Structures are given as structure tokens and as C-alpha cells.
């Protein structure tokens, strides 16, 4: 499965996929990884991605990449979530939310969930713009160097490889530049 996502990412990077789509996919993957402990919030986030134009391969790869990071950061998330949930200024708001219909099912009163949600939302723009910048950087600086490198040219000319590339290109609508 990850191989397929990698191939799709490569296709996206080398085609006219908008950098923002890849960036958004990466950011949502990051957010979903940190929304641990609340299936309701994950479902909401996934539902949102269902309707938005984002690169799903970037989302899945990003999710795979950030899940272990989120697991390692759990104690920090717990501390952050505990801090936010016990802020005196927010007690009224949280109490109102807790007594609302359906909201308690999101488990927002759990320290890990709140910490992950806060981290995910706060760092979402950074990851989005970072991802977008990386795509632009790849296209402007790295792509041509890779395409023009003698090793890449030799590799792609190998009989089997060239066939595979042609077939994959046909299947995925690969650009003639690759």
C-alpha cells in the first residue's frame, strides 16, 4: 500500500497537481495522526477531506509518517491538553460544550484528545505551507536535476524499467517530461 502512495506522490509532484493540494494533504495527515483517542473527531476530519480537493496519497503518507511521532509525543500532548482543559478562563466554555448534545462524544474533555487537537490545529498552517513550499522547491530545483542526471537517464533506459515507466505513465497519466 505505501508503495502505491509513493508512486502517486511522485506522479503528483511531477504533474500539474497544485502544490496546495499536496500541502493540504500533508497537513490533514498530520492532523489526523495527532487526533488520537477520539474517533468522532477523526471521522469529522476525514469527512472534511472527502469533500476537499487534497492529495490523498500525501494525506496517507503523512499520516503514516506522523503516527509514530504523535505516539512519542503523547506525554507532551497530555500535559498540553491538561493545561488547556484546566484553564480557568475556559471552564465556562467547556462546561457549555460538555452539556451540548453530541459534543461529549468527541471526548474533547480527554487530555490527550485536547492536546492532539490543539497541536494539530495550531501546526496545521505550518505543515500546509511547508508542504507546499517543498513541492515548489522540488519542481523548481530538484526535478530537473533528477531528470537530467546521467544515472536516472541510464536507469530509465533499461529495457524493463522503461517498459514499466511507460505502463505506469499510461495508467497514471504521467507527464512526458518524466
Amino acid at each position, binding site marked *: 500500500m505505501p508503495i502505491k502512495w509513493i508512486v502517486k506522490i511522485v506522479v503528483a509532484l511531477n*504533474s*500539474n*497537481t*497544485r*502544490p496546495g493540494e499536496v500541502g493540504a494533504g500533508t497537513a490533514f495527515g498530520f492532523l489526523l495522526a495527532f487526533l488520537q*483517542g477520539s474517533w468522532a473527531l477523526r471521522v469529522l476530519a476525514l469527512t472534511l477531506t*472527502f*469533500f*476537499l*480537493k487534497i492529495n490523498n496519497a500525501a494525506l496517507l503518507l503523512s499520516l503514516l509518517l506522523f503516527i509514530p511521532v504523535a505516539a512519542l509525543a*503523547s*506525554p507532551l*500532548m*497530555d500535559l498540553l*491538553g*491538561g493545561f488547556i*482543559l*484546566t484553564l480557568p478562563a475556559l*471552564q465556562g466554555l*467547556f*462546561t457549555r460544550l*460538555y*452539556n451540548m*448534545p*453530541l459534543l461529549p462524544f468527541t*471526548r474533547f*474533555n*480527554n*487530555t*490527550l*484528545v485536547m*492536546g492532539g487537537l490543539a497541536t494539530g490545529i495550531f501546526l496545521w498552517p505550518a505543515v500546509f505551507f511547508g508542504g507546499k513550499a517543498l513541492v515548489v522547491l522540488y*519542481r*523548481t530545483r530538484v526535478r530537473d536535476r533528477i531528470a537530467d542526471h546521467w544515472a536516472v537517464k541510464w536507469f530509465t533506459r533499461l529495457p524493463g524499467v522503461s517498459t514499466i515507466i511507460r505502463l505506469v505513465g499510461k495508467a497514471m*497519466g504521467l*507527464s*512526458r*517530461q518524466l
Partner: protein
Amino acid sequence: MSVPSLFRKRYTEKALQKKILARIPIARDRDYLEGLFLRGEDGRYGIDPGMRPSKAERKRLKSLAKAVKANRGVIKAPKLAAALVLLAAVAGGYFLFRNLVARKALEAGLEAVFQARARVEGMDFDLFGARVAWTRLEVADRDRPMKNLFELGPTRAELNGQALLRLRFVVETIESRDIRWNTDRKTSGALPGAPKPEKEGPGLLDKAGASVMGALSSVDVEALIQEEYEKLASPRAAEKARAEMEARKDALERKSAALKEKIRAASGPAGELRAVDIGSIKTPEAAASALAKANAALPAVRELAASAEDLRREIDGAVREAAEAKKALEKALDDDYARVEALTGLSGGDSVSLARGLFAGYASESLGVWYGYGRRALEAARNLTREKGGTAKPAPRTAFQGRDIPFPVRDALPRFWIKNFAFSTASAPLVTGRAEDITGEPDLVGKPARFTASYENREIRLGLEGLLDLRKEATVEADLGLKTAGFPVRAAPPSPVLTIASLEGPLELEARMRLLPGGAMDGRLEGALLRPRVTRQGKGDRVSDLAYGVLSGARRVDITARFSAGPGRGMDLSLSSSLDAALKEGLSAYIKDEEKKLKARAKAALQDRLNEALAENETLRAGIEEARKIAGGDMAEAGALSSGVEGKKKEIEKRGEELKKQAADSLLEKLPGKVPGKLPAVPKF
């Protein structure tokens, strides 16, 4: 020309930039396209219509056109449209299937609570209006599958919309018309796999006390004695005394026979000795010979004397024991007479409780039915608690899962709660009622479930009120109160009591029953049977005629009862009525007289049974006395022999001494002068 249609249009410079070029991120492709669009005379940009692109170019233009279209907007319109269609389908499904789903859910819930088939017809469920209604609902009786526990006609319920959003099923009010119960079913109402219903009946109350009025009209004294004989002390005492005296008598006879034998054996030597004439003993040798004879006879007579003494002690002991046995037997007899008299007594407690005899069966059966209904209601309420309101066990925590910070919950609601339920029948008999606070989480609601019901049909009125309390701190699980007026009652004991087969009439009653934790119950009832109609069966006697007269003439019979029951113990029913005092007064002199006769009969019957044993004991006692007399003669003879031999021996010894002295004196006389009158003194050494 096979240039995509998107590129065949002509655009202003701004539109070209915004709609085409800005949507191509890759610079090389963007430059390629920009090179294709040329400015025309109209100031717009377009691709040369005469352009003949190669295959590769066509392919490239096609993929670029696709990319331009794909890079429009941020929302996936097709998927959004699909979602909207799905939502419409769900909405359509809701409108089409809401009633079916609601009906199935209600039936499943009722079946879980009542453990029997439930059916709902004409369901109308409005989620957004928070209303539910149906035309008919029936729930079968688990214990009688071919009957319905209850049926509800047209019913309408108003739900709490806010609570629904919080997944709480709270019914503000529910009104139901045409309620019925115990109606017939065409098909069995048992759930598949349900166990067979237990045998119907009061069960717990089967051991209610039986009437003891039969004792008054026909006490079988002989049967009573027969029954009690094993428990009496005098037969055992008589048997014990008989055995002991018989053993003693046998021992006495043996010892007496032995003594006779010894007397016979000792008589010979003693007789010979007695025949010795003291005066004929002239010489010491003759005295010695006589003395030897006496010494030879002495051991035998001494043994004889000892045996006689032993026998005397034995006889004294036997006589003493016989006297003690007689005293013990007389005491046992007195005790047994008193016991039998007490058993045949008629003046205490239940013995004149006609009410108990007539009404115990009816009261037990009725109480059993109400007790059964009360327990079923509690069971249904507990099922409700488990089904709807029970707190789920928390899932086992595995990895690090953070901490839940609790926030204050305002207006916590139970998962299921009927605040008000009003019901009534549509036709006579008129039944109306109300129930409040039926819930699976009584501790959250903070109140017990309450209900009232009334029944009216011409002259009959019945009112029921009570509460069911399954809260943790509840000391009483159910408290039921019942009032009736004009309720027709027929009390018929299993067999006629004093020829009274049944008693009928309208009943006025006020009763209270409590069901306690652990399955126990207690309560009281006070009532009156008005203008009772009495039915007789069988031949009457003076007592039953009197009882009939008292009952027939009574305008009302007041009844009071206290009852309690529990698992593992039967029903404890204490019943009394105004009949008892009237009957007791009328019968008091007769009862006393009868009692006296009964006691005398009982005593005589006991004496008859014991006469044989007593006579046997008397015979044995007489036998011992006779043996004593006979043994007395032998003992006297033995004593005489003994004293005779002893006396003779002393005489012989005395005679021997005399003869010795005479011989010594004679010797001294024969030697006068040869022996100095005074012997010289022996020189001193």
C-alpha cells in the same frame, strides 16, 4: 483540429492568466501554453485555428486541459453532490421507514422488559416533532402465553427533543385510551427459546394455615391418643418399672432358693450340735470333741447368716425401688393426663376462629395474586434498569489514553424516562390511571415510580395506588394500597366449615402491601363483608346451626388481617373477624361443657391404654412383697440356726473351762502334804 475545447476559446489577457495559466503549476507547461495563445486583432488571445498538432502535442494539450479543469476550486463538487444525494436518500429513507424502524425498536424494547412477544400497530414516529403515536399495542403474558398482559389502544406520546439530541429517550407525557389486560391471544406470546412458564398459582402462599374449626364438631379422642401415644411418658415409665421389678423379682427368687438350700445344708450339723447335752459332757475330752463339732458347723452357719443378710438388703432395695417406680409412674401419668387435656382444649386462640376457617383460603389466594403482580412489576422494572439505564462497563484501557477531565453536568437525564403516563378504558368498566417517573435509572431521577388506578363498574369501585422504588437506598421496593367498595366476593373453603360451604357478598376493603428487598412482603387489610349470603352443605349439629345462625343474621362481617411472607417460609396470616366474638359468646357455655367431656374422655382413653401396663406393674410389686414375706421366714430360720450354733459353742466352751478347773482342783486335793503349804523361797542368784 483536435485541440481540447477549453483551448479553442478566446480569452482576454486577464482571463487567460486567471483561468488557464494560473492553473498550470509547472513552468515548462505554462510557458508552452502561453506560447500557443496569440493575441488577435480583437485584443483577445487564442490558439491559431489552423494549428495542426501532432499526436504527442494533442496528448499534451489534453492532459493540460484536464489539469486546468482539475485545478478549479477547492471543493470536490461531484462528491459533494453525491453526499447531498445520499443525504436526500437518508431523508427519504427516514420519511419512508421511520415508522417501521421505530416500531421494531419499540417491540424489541418491550420484549426485553416483559420477556414476551410485543406487537405495535399504526406506528407514527416524528423525530423532529418529538412525537410518537400508535393505534394498538399488545404485550403477551410471559407466564400465560395465550393471554396478553396488557393491551393499549390509541396512544400518543410527547418526547423531549433536547433529550433526544443527547440520545436520551425522555417522554414528557403519554396518553393511552382503551387499556385492557388479560385478553385472549390467537397465537402464543412466548418468545423463541423462552423457558416454559412455571405452574400458576400462589405458590409461596400454599402453606397458609388450615382451619381448625373441625376440632369443635368432631374431635376423635382415640385417634388423638393413638397419635400422641408415642410422645407420652407414662408408657415408657411403666415399661421401665416393669422391666426393673421383673429383674429384681427373679434375683430375689434365685437368692431365696439359694438361702433355702444353705439352710438345708447347715441344718444337719447344726441339729447335731443342738442335740448335744451340755450336762452329758463330763470330761475335757468330751468338751473338746463337742467344741470340734461346733467349730465344724460354724463356717456354714456364718455363711448362712451372711446370705440371709444379703437377701434382706436385696429385698429392702427391691421394695424401695418398687416404691420409687410407683411414684415416677404416678407422676408420668399425671403429666400425661395434663398433656392430653391440653390437646383437647377448645378455649384458646384459633380454635374458635371461624373467620380463619372461612376466609384464609380466599385471603391467601387474593394476596398471592397481588403478591405475584407486585413481583412481576418489580421484575419488569429491574429489566428496564438493566436494559436502558445500566451503566456500561468501561472498556479496558490499553496504551496511554490520557485523563478525562469531568465538567459539571447540568440537568443530567436518564437514558429512558417516562414522566407521565395516563391511561383509560374506552368503554365500561371504566378504568383510569396514571403512572409517573418510570425510568431505568431511578437514582438519577431521584424519585420512585408512582401509579394510581381506579375501576368503576355500576356498584363496584376499586382504587389502587402505590409506588415502585428501585433506588439504591430504598428500604421498601414496592408499596401498594388498595381500596374497594361493592366488590363481589365469594369465600369458599376447600371443605365446608361447620357445614358452611361458602360466603358471598359485596366487600369493602382497605389494604396495604409492602414488598421488601430480598423478596419478603408484609401488610394489613381491614374490610367488611356486607349482608353475607351463606350456603350450607351437609348435616348440621348444634354448633354448626349456631354458626349458621350467627352468619345469616349478621349485617356485616368485619375482617382484619395482618400477613407476611418471604422466600423459604410460608405465608403467615393472622386473621380475625367480628364473627369470632359473636360465635364465641354463643358457644361459650357449650364449649366449656364439651371441653370438660372431651378432657374426661381423653383421660379415660389414656387410662384404658395404660391399664394393662399398670396392672402388670402392680402384680410385680405384689410378687416382690410376697417374696419378701417368704424370704422373711427363711431369714428368721437362718438367724435361729446361726444364733443356736453360736450359743451352743459358748456353752461348750464354758463347760470345757469348768471341767478344766474341776480337774485342776481335783489334782490339788490328791496331793495334800506332799506339797508344802508354803514353798521355800527360791534363792536369789
